[in-house]
């Protein structure tokens, strides 16, 4: 790894695993995940419910609730800022509680799915900000804290009259804006978003996504964005990681993944959501349901649901390997360069334009 890549790397997860439970009763919810996030980039993590995407982020942020435990691996986080000449990494897995407290919110902040339950119901908006500022910026005066809060609310398009409101007095979209403003309070270098728009209506979703993209380009924080909605992710993310049953099955630049998925599961996910633009297509979805973590199928974990499964898939687990000549990885035997494996046409396409330009859909007419 060369010098510039090191200092531009924000988070490096290496063979990261999370278990629920101990000893014989333990089930592995996140299995040997290796991924990284570079400074100022947006990495999307997609997958069904139970794929381990949320467990992964609660794992490396050390917010797992019992009986969740980190079972192995490293989570290296870069504490230095963008101007530093080299990275200063801390392993979040082995960090002490007091070291973690310094990293929390100053360097890594989190936005959860439901802002109503994520905001303390008995505190006014202003007090929620005060709590953070008093803890991490003890030298700030009352009026400085107030100014900072107003500034942050303005960033997310909220008027300062929201200061005295309680969470239950705000609309769903406003609450999530408050949550985002709260997440940016200390200028973190990484903001983790756990399905921040899932609980919102489509129009508000668009506004929030637009706001996030704008804020990211303004402040240059990196983002991990978790969702099961791949079409949403493709507009925001630089890179997308697809998880299935606790493992990473595919990783690729966002548009590339969207246009030409290589893993059958990714293709299934893409067929489960209507495209944002373009012609109506039949939603096929993925047959079956995610595997039971305590009874994981052998070989490739997706093979019982995979329409292209081969005999080999039930026996051997495919590694996450780089696709030849491309900046992407996939864990699938179809793409292992095996002569016998006939790669189906849907998984072979290169750079297919999945969505025609805006306006073209009118020409399609009724189907």
């Amino acid at each position: 790894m060369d010098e510039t890549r090191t200092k531009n790397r924000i988070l490096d997860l290496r063979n990261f695993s999370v278990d629920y439970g101990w000893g014989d009763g333990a089930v592995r919810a996140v299995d040997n995940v290796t991924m990284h996030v570079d400074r100022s980039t947006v990495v999307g993590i997609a997958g069904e419910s139970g794929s381990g995407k949320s467990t992964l982020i609660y794992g490396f942020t050390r917010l797992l609730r019992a009986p969740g435990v980190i079972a192995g691996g490293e989570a290296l986080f870069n504490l230095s800022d963008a101007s530093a000449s080299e990275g200063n990494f801390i392993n979040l897995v082995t960090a002490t509680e007091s070291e973690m407290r310094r990293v929390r919110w100053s360097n890594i902040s989190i936005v959860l799915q439901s802002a109503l339950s994520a905001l303390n119901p008995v505190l006014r908006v202003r007090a929620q900000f005060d709590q953070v500022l008093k803890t991490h910026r003890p030298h700030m005066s009352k009026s400085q804290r107030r100014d900072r809060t107003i500034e942050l609310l303005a960033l997310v398009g909220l008027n300062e009259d929201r200061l005295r409101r309680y969470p239950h007095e705000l609309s769903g979209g406003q609450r999530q804006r408050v949550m985002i403003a709260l997440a940016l309070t200390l200028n973190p270098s990484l903001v983790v978003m756990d399905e921040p728009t899932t609980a919102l209506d489509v129009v508000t979703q668009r506004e929030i996504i637009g706001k996030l993209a704008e804020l990211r380009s303004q402040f240059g924080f990196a983002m991990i964005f978790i969702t099961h909605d791949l079409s949403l992710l493709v507009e925001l993310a630089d890179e997308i990681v697809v998880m299935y049953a606790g493992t990473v099955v595919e990783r690729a630049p966002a548009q590339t993944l969207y246009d030409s998925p290589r893993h059958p599961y990714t293709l299934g996910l893409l067929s489960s959501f209507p495209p944002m633009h373009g012609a109506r297509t039949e939603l096929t979805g993925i047959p079956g349901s995610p595997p039971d973590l305590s009874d994981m199928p052998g070989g490739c974990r997706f093979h019982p649901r995979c329409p292209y499964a081969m005999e080999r898939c039930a026996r051997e687990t495919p590694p996450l390997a780089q696709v030849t000549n491309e900046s992407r990885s996939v864990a699938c035997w179809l793409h292992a360069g095996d002569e016998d494996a006939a790669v189906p046409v849907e998984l072979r396409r290169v750079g297919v334009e999945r969505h025609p330009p805006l306006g073209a859909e009118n020409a399609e007419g009724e189907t």
Partner: protein
Amino acid sequence: MRIIGRRLLLYVLTAWVAISVNFLLPHLMPGNPIQTLIGKLQGQVTPQEIEAIRLSFGGGIDKGLLSQYFTYIDQLFHGNLGVSITLSSPVSTILKASVPWTIGLIGVSTLLSFLIGTVSGALLGWTRGSRLDALIPTATFFQAIPYFFLATVMLLIFGSNLHWFPVLGAYSQNLHPGWTWPFVASAFRYAELPVVSIVLSSVAGWMLGMRNMMITVAAEDFVLMSVAMGLSKRKVIMTAARNAVLPSIANLSLAIGLVVSGALLVELVFNYPGVGDLLLNAVQNEDYPLIQGIFLVITLAVLAANLLADVVYLALDPRTRTETVA
């Protein structure tokens, strides 16, 4: 403030209904206090004396129920609760003598029990699964054994045998009641054992309630967020406790309202002057003015406690402050 005003109006209305029911109740009950009194004299009275007794209680002045009702209300506003039949002194004087003792003893015990139970419950809830959990069966054990048995055993061991605490009464008989230091100190000293016994037998309820709420609230997203925000452990626990305490506050208000009704068993075991004992005697002797007086005080105390709880709840939980369009 408008919400409090509206609540206040509701309480005034409730109080009026309660007072009216209180007035009607003796009229609906069987029996007759004069008959009871005469019965007690066991025939050693002449018919003239019976007539005299009847007249002295307002007999013969047969007024309609409605007119009696207005007289009752009018007297009530003048602080006149009538004269006790058995004790032959004004009900208000009798109440003034016993209500403060009850409020002092049961009130302090209730508050102590609430504080100890809630604080320990919060910690137990936060550290659930730890060795501290052994406190729960211990506390429920003391709540499970009948109170009179617990109190009697405590009185026997710590009072009569070990002489750690004074027994019988609310203060040393050598002292004159008054706001003097020796008297107040003596009152405290005599209250110790009853207070400990009440707290011991009631703390489990507060503890379990708070512990369970704490476990529920600790699983909420905003508690997880307060950890993610890097707040100190103390602040994180306070965030959870602040939200978990709300149901306990509601229960406390109900408990405070019942303080005035006294605790008969406590008063009997420790020979403590109080409302419980007074009410028992009043009911046995069909002493209507006294029964009415005690009921009135209890009713008003419950209402006042509920109003207090409403105000505290409004202050603690902003979600209850939402104005509903009338």
